[in-house]
């Protein structure tokens, strides 16, 4: 993403933090200490929450930068879900739910699936929910509405995920008490932009890793990076990444400004970003050769994150259709 001076400083701080505290391989298990630092030390879950509500008063643009950086190291902690939930709640009349999210004592998860409501009782089961296992607060979509549900009122079962850096759980609601906190559509738009930002960050990291490998690794007596076919592949991936980054850049600004075209560009951003990420992560394995498909190398972690992100919360084809229908209506 292209930075202003402010976001450049934020990015540099975050990159330092993640390089020090969150290298990729450390994301294979929960790390409560890391979560504490992300929240209390850096205040990242309240980054885009107004200061008068206890946040840092930055915008969605800055949050997108943070999530890009989190994506670089495939952060396992529930930062994305919790920070987006905080933005949604700050904009609702349920601001009283914010404090535990901001001080890190509680994390949140978005439950998107077939849930129905009867009075204020929610019922339904959702098969794959990101970050639900550790969550204290669930934000549940019911048709066009969004409800807050105490996680203790739900049955949550941890799942083994294809992507070991992204915890998944199944959530069962059986008449759990819910509180209406806003619209589902806007929350999903914000979630899509967040996932898109994370994806371009991760994609850029694995592409950089690949280029670094091509630069040092020799074959047939010369660096791999001197083979034109490989360089052109890298160039094509760069074009795809830059294009996706542009759409994410635009969507983050639209989210920050609540621009009227956010509902169009938010799904488009996730579609474009995850397309780029799956292509780049797939080619990263290929360009690394044999080492790229070993368990020890990080390439497969990016690859699994890419595909997981692409398949959760609607696939690229569906999202593009949604964007098109919204963007060409009228």
């Amino acid at each position, binding site marked *: 993403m292209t930075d202003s001076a402010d976001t450049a400083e934020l990015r540099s701080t975050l990159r330092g933090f993640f390089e020090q505290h969150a290298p990729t391989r450390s994301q294979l298990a929960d790390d409560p200490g890391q979560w504490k630092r992300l929240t209390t030390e850096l205040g990242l879950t309240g980054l885009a929450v107004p200061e008068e509500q206890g946040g840092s008063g930055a915008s969605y643009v800055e949050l997108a930068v943070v999530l890009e950086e989190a994506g670089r190291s495939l952060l396992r902690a529930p930062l994305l879900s919790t920070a987006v939930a905080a933005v949604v709640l700050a904009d609702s009349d349920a601001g009283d739910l914010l404090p535990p999210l901001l001080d890190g004592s509680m994390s949140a998860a978005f439950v998107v699936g077939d849930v129905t409501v009867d009075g204020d009782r929610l019922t339904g089961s959702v098969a794959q929910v990101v970050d639900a296992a550790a969550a204290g607060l669930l934000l549940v979509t019911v048709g066009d509405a969004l409800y807050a549900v105490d996680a203790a009122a739900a049955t949550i079962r941890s799942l083994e995920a294809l992507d070991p850096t992204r915890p998944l759980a199944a959530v069962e609601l059986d008449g759990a008490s819910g509180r209406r906190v806003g619209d589902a559509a806007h929350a999903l738009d914000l979630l899509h932009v967040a996932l898109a930002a994370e994806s371009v960050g991760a994609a850029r990291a694995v592409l950089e890793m690949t280029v670094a490998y091509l630069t040092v690794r020799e074959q047939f007596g010369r660096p791999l990076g001197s083979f034109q076919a490989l360089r052109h592949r890298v*160039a094509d991936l760069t074009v795809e990444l830059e294009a996706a980054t542009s759409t994410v*850049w*635009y969507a983050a600004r639209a989210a920050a400004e609540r621009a009227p075209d956010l509902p169009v*560009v938010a799904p488009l951003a996730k579609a*474009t970003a995850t397309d780029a990420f799956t292509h780049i992560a797939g080619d990263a394995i290929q360009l690394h050769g044999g080492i790229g498909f070993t368990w020890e190398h990080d390439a497969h972690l990016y690859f699994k994150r890419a595909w997981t992100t692409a398949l959760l919360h609607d696939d690229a084809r569906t999202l593009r259709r949604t964007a098109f229908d919204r*963007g060409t209506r009228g």
Partner: protein
Amino acid sequence: MSLADFRGEVQAWLRERLDGKFAAVVGTGGPGREHEHVEERKAWEQELARGGWVGLGWPRDAGGRGASIEEQVVFYEEYARAGGPGRINHLGEQLAGPTIAAFGTQEQKDRFLPGILQGTDIWCQGYSEPGAGSDLAAVRTTAVMREDGWHIDGQKVWTSLTQYADWCFVLARSDAGSERHRGLSYLLVPMRQPGVEVRPIVQLTGTSEFNEVFFDDAVTAADNVVGEPGAGWRVAMGTLAFERGVSTLGQQVGFAHDLDQVIAAAISSGAVEHDAVKDQIVEAWAGLQTLRHSALRTLNNDASSSTGVEANVSKLLWANWHQRLGELAMSVQGAAATVVDGDGFSPLQTMFLASRAGTIYGGSNEVQRNIIAERFWGLPKDRA
């Protein structure tokens, strides 16, 4: 003036003329169609100049209007939306003018900029040579200084709009025996003289957007060299950097028009009923949104965060996007696309055919990929 007011002014000015005296030029020109209504488009260039729209983004001290990026975006968007014709002097306004303003002497600025700003001097570009392809440094055209000025001999190719041009900026080898990037001079050469011959190249569209130019003892004045003699490569590279992305937003409005035509054809043929065709249309639409986001992001760049290869990324993106759209245009028409109805190729057929050139001219896809790999990532160059 607010941006909205500015937009209103642009719209009103364009509407008055394009609905009126210049109605004939609406939608003319552009890729594969540069032969259309040439005289009217020359007059249109001067009308634009009278309206103060030529050199809109040039600095004021070069005689431009110093408009902000946002204003330029508005102008290009509205221009394209109103069906403004392909600009017959875009090489003058976009390349020659800015180059002379940046690298030229005061005398050169006084001599050449007014003709561009008034729309009276049409310019073309003399870079590529036969047999050199994308290798811009393989210049064999020579320039020799004699008492009456520079004498130029050689051949340029893939020059657009040449047959209408008054002047040409020519990269020529002025140091005999020099090689590659060294010993080249950047010369401004009048086209209306016996030593210059233009031969149109007929393209697969059946039209001639590009030409060959033969310089056979063509002459230009001694002081019509921009920068130092022998240091023309730096000037030529500077020219290429002036494409700042604003005009691509105008180009995209044209692309949107192409896409609308494809959608209309898909509806009319019934192809849109196929879910898979609908998907392809949606993908084309999504790609166009991304083109726009990319141009806007580039325009917002501050120097510190730019990638340095925005223009190369943008070229690959739009050229490939447009080529896929051309193929989609054929697919949605089905068998009907194989027939030429009426007078020459249909707009969609022309678009389909012309889109094959977009990935070649102005730096082929292959050259753009080389530059991205080398400049952005620092990967090794091809060994020469």
